[in-house]
């Protein structure tokens, strides 16, 4: 499979990581330092996932 982008994150992993960050935030258990680190991580994931969603074509290999 050809990959144009530097590193596309898998939708499954990306969304599950992002969702766990969201729930960590919502649990209110993060201190400021952790919150900033998670926020950075979350923003990066959002960008990567957006990039992944921009892939338009499906690759079809006929046997």
């Amino acid at each position, binding site marked *: *499979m050809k990959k144009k982008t530097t590193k*596309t994150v*898998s*939708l*499954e992993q990306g*969304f599950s990581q*992002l*969702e766990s*960050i*969201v729930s960590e*935030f*919502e649990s209110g258990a*993060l201190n*400021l330092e952790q*919150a*900033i680190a*998670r*926020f950075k991580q*979350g*923003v990066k994931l*959002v960008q990567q*996932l*957006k990039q*992944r*969603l921009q*892939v*338009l*074509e*499906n*690759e*079809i*290999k*006929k*046997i």
Partner: protein
Amino acid sequence: MTPKIVPVGQFVELINLYLQEIGEVIVEGEIGELKLSQGRWLFLTIKDSQASLSVFAVLAQITNFNSLSEGMLVRVRGVPKLYQRSGRFSLVASEILPAGEGSLKMAFERLKKELDQEGLFALSRKRQITRYPERLGLLTANNSQAYSDFVKVLKHRLGGIAITFYPIKVQGNEAVDSILAGFRYFSQKKLRFDAIVLLRGGGSLEDLQAFNDERVVRQIYSSLDPVITGIGHESDWTLADLVADVRASTPSNAAELLVFDKRELLAKLERHNKTIASQLQLILLEKKNFLIKFSGLLESMINKYQHKLLTLSRLLDSLDYRNVLKRGYSITYDGNGQVLKNINQVKIWGSIITKLAVGEIFSQIKQLKTKNEKKDY
């Protein structure tokens, strides 16, 4: 001319030579009697209003045996043969297929019941398909409507998926073998899929026959990867649908069930993005409020201590002995600088020092009197 005399064996052989000329035939009739012998051979009769015919088959060849029952209209493919030992005429069958909607329905219900009892359709063994599949194995007919519907809807919803397409025959004699070959190909260890997608457009019960074949059902049951089917129309339920991990009503519906629409995912991303940003802001606001509250607290503490300090210093002022001296009192010390509180501390002619508000008096004691003695002055 007198007919030639021939031994029985030769005669039967001769008849069989003639019968071979007929070759393979397909005979349609209703199953009259159906008997299994020693679990290996199948004896049945097929009949119509005019005649009946014995049929013999090796059970292993009749893979759909479970779906056959007496009274069912069938098409028997086979060759005619006269058996030497019994002299019995039989059609030696290689395939017995239900014919007509009624029989197909009957065969379908029979097999469905049997496989259901065996547990092939149990909900507990259905596997979940990831909601974010990246690799799909596709089994459907080349250039079919099912193929183009699926690919179109999938692409419209989400890109970036690797699809391995193995074209199969979905109808006719070769359909079952073709479907089985597709599954076998996909079961190679090096190929792993998030799901195998088995598709076919709508058709009659007869058209969908391959998807009701016991071998196909068992192949789906034993597939390494989860299987989603999209066969026929909304109302068509084949046995393949029943055994599949997920059943979609149509090929398009299979694409819809497999992947989220990317617009839906983008909206989800926005929601998550907003949540973490607002949550972070909330934490920052909380910290800021804490700082404001803390500095207020600190200020009021400082004020409180300042006030206390003032009061204390005033009290200290009022307690200063020098202020007492200013009011006319004085302190007397003995020669060693000890404050005098009792006349026993000194003796007649001893020296004492009296400290006044301003200055000191050095004196010599002339007389001593206790408190009880009458005062001289």
